[in-house]
């Protein structure tokens, strides 16, 4: 591991101090696999990353490696803490063969059980409640798991290509999106498709529900068509969209007015929802910025991407 601190002058007049941690140059020969997802522990003291290397646990803000856990599959794609903050779900799989979800106890990191029913990798999660988890898979399905019975409660079929993103709306509806360019709203209870929204013109990479939206639920989606679109999915309305200079791979809301987008040019962009504009573009990753995670309290975020890079950046 190679730690270092840098000062970096960002576009405009703002000068920020970045704490940078370049991970994974363990070998001078082989390139490190990309960081595919990041998650902060509920108390904000720990950052967890996943990649083909497995899980890595870092102290925050120091980014000191504290623990490594081997991957349970060839590829790990997603991480998510349960609402009660006592479980960590990790998704992944062996490409074109199977997909699975590993549940760990937090903070002990004790493995609890694995869930597997997919024919391809699990790439995204959404918790419905403490005991129910939605897993999106490249096998074109969403599966609603009951963790108490460790069984699949519902399978949502309808996407014509891999499902890459999911979130849960308060009323009990589930939203998914995927490579078929559609955003779909499902009834969590019946598993029926309620509506499908098709304004994206290329595959969709990510969904993020706005945490404190007033009125109807609000979500954002990021797509290969370089747009981030904002929706009121309960009424099937696309409210507005912003076209970025570079393709966004992952998004995370900062607050109800701004969100972060990690992009394939390695920059993380701050998108203003109300003005549908990019207010800042922050150089972060040498390569693709696959994952962004907002720290719960200290005003910083983490960006991860190509070559195993992880950066801490103050907002």
């Amino acid at each position, binding site marked *: 591991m190679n730690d270092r601190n840098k000062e970096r002058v960002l576009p405009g007049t703002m000068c920020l101090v970045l704490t940078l941690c370049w991970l994974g140059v363990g070998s001078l020969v*082989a390139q490190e*696999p990309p960081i595919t997802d990041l998650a902060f522990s509920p108390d904000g003291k720990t950052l967890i990353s996943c990649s083909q290397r497995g899980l890595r646990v870092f102290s925050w803000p120091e980014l000191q490696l504290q623990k490594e856990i081997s991957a349970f599959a060839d590829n790990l794609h997603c991480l998510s803490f349960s609402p009660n903050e006592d479980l960590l779900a990790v998704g992944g799989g*062996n490409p074109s063969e199977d997909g699975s979800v590993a549940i760990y106890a937090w903070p002990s990191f004790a493995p609890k059980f694995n869930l597997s029913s997919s024919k391809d990798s699990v790439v995204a999660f959404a918790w419905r409640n403490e005991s129910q988890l939605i897993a999106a898979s*490249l096998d074109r399905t969403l599966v609603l798991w009951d963790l108490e019975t460790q069984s699949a409660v519902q399978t949502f079929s309808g996407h014509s290509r891999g499902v890459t993103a999911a979130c849960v709306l308060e009323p009990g509806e589930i939203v998914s999106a995927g490579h078929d360019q559609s955003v779909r709203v499902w009834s969590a209870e019946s598993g029926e498709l309620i509506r499908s929204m098709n304004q994206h013109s290329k595959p969709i990479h990510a969904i993020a529900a706005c945490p404190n939206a007033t009125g109807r639920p609000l979500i954002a989606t990021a797509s290969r068509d370089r747009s981030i679109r904002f929706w009121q999915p309960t009424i099937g309305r696309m409210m507005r969209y912003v076209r970025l200079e570079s*393709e966004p791979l992952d998004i995370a809301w900062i607050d109800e007015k701004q969100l972060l987008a990690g992009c*394939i040019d390695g920059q993380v962009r701050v998108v203003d929802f109300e003005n549908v504009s990019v207010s800042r573009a922050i150089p972060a990753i040498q390569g693709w910025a696959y994952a962004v995670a907002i720290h719960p309290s200290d005003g910083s975020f983490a960006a991860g991407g190509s070559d195993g890079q992880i950066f801490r950046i103050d907002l």
Partner: protein
Amino acid sequence: MDTPPPGKSPETNRDEAIDFKNDLIPIFTKLGCNAGKCHGSAIGRGGFRLSLYGGTPEADYDEIVRKLGGRRVNLVDPASSLIFLKPAEVVEHGGGAVLVDDDSNADTLMKWIEQGAKFVENRKLVRVEVAPKRFIASGVADETPLKVVAHYDDGITRDVTHLTKFVAEDAAAIRIGSNPITAQGMRAGRHIIIARYSTEVVPIELIVPNFDPVSKLVSEPRPNFVDDEVLASLNDLRLPVSPVIADQAFKRRVSLDLMGQLPAYQRMSDSSRLDREAVIDGILASEEFVEFYTLKFSKLLRIQSKGDKNTVPTDPQAARGFHDWLAEQLRNRVGYDQIAREIITASGDTTQYGPATFYTAVEDARLQTEFATEVFMGSRMKCANCHNHPLDQWTQDDFHGLAAIFSKLTRSKVIRLNPVGNNIHPATGKAALMKIPGGNFLPSDTKDGRGALAEWLTDRKNPYFAKAIVNRLWKSLMGRGLVEPVDDFRATNPATHPVLLNRLAEDFVEHGYDIRHTLKVIAMSSSYSRSSIPVKGNESDNRFYSHMVQKPLEPEVLADAISDVLGVSTRYGDESLGTRAIALRDGAIQSDSLDVLGRCDRTNSCEVAPAPIGPLAQKLHLFNGDLLNERIGATNGRLQKLIQAQKTPTEIVNVFYESALNRQPNDNEIDALTRWIDLAKPAAQQRAALEDFVWSIVTCKEFVTNH
């Protein structure tokens, strides 16, 4: 791509690092992974999309290494990489097992992943050299080894035969062997093998001569260089030639080819000889030539009025104006380069200035790009709309750069500059920069790039312009282009006679881009004068001009010929009765006759000739329809007038043979017709028999083709 891929690996010795562009992409091409029927298709396959034949290695790198969280390459456990497991069919693969564990391709792929799956480009490919480029076999199954050497920008050369994909144009005629890689022609003829390494494609010509030895070609007359080249090719193939046709037949042929009409029949004594050059000169100087070649160019330039709500309208006056302008250029012997320049740079009111109508033929700048390059470069650039052309040099930048030039125009009755017009480049999502195909980008402040385009296109050294038009002129006389289709010039579709094509183009340029000059050169050659009847040994030849190709008459020419022979005119739209079909100034003029005969609707450039044996509906019309039957028996028709003039059946038969076929019936035909038109029968039956005879004359192959 927003960010460049990682640079060369500093940790790995340059010569040990697997080169993504020069080592790996060729493997994908050789295995067929990036072919159009597999992951190279526009939408990819199985969610995995590669650029067609590796045309965009940077995008392929992203697809393989970076997309889907990098799951296709496993840097921790290379042997678990999907990019290896799929082609090795360790996991289910629609394309089957294309990688074998112990082959060198698998080794290279695995080594690349082990090295970190980096985008390494050790050196840039400059060109590839194929040996042999041309192989004349001693006979069927004669084998030749194939070798491909890549030349790089650092001076290094490398044998890349094993990384080269060889594809025979006719897979049944060529056998490609492996270890060592060889080619065998399994059938007599000229065969093309396409060698593809990386982005380079090189054609290999493999000639398997006939078994029968041919002599006498040396003594064949060679009025000009056309025959030198045609006979040299025939000599290689050991193909015999058909004899030169007689003067009457020559006159019919050249009249139909250059004027679009049958010549008047003149009896010639056995001793008299036609001055063929004088005949050609006379035709080329005639108004009929201007009329006919205006029709040909009108078809090429898609001149017709139109007003559908889904199309850019073309006013009838604009269509006629463009037609008349073209006729004026031909009449005044204006060089083709100047004609092209005026068309390309035309602006203004289309009803006032004909050439501006060029910009109402199609709906948008991209279609204009396809249209213009097909017409003036003989090149189908449209593949490059979506991806770099897999079989040619054209890139998306070329296509969209040219479309950007045309996007600066409004398309309506008045063609004018539109400063805010642009063409979005699909690869970048931004307005494409104006660019000369295969050349430079134009300065960003260029308001109208058409001047630069026209200058480049009509430059004496332009490699496309002159060849494209002389190839079309060649086809109009010889029935088949030296490059066929005539709008598909590319390295992988080589000319049957490349030297001849070059010489014709150079000669055309040297003579001021004079269409008449090139037509005369071709028409004066012995090759043009050959009989269409094959001789023993050249029956199967359809591309080397050992005998003339039988050309179906163009619909307009056939319509006029029928009118001339029957002595009854057809009315076209609102034109006055007697207006000839080849003189119509608007391709959209209503005419059931022309539709029945297969008229091209000019939504394309009418480059495909109507089939000699037309579709069923056309045949039924000819058998039963009014086009012939009513006119054969018309009271003002030629047959009725001859009968009224009390001509004998024999005299009537002679008249129709002379007017339709430019010859007199031979003894066998006279014998058969005498029995058919039985003078002992009542007059009504004789008349019916004569009508049947006339019908057979105007529907026989000898009449409906130029042969």
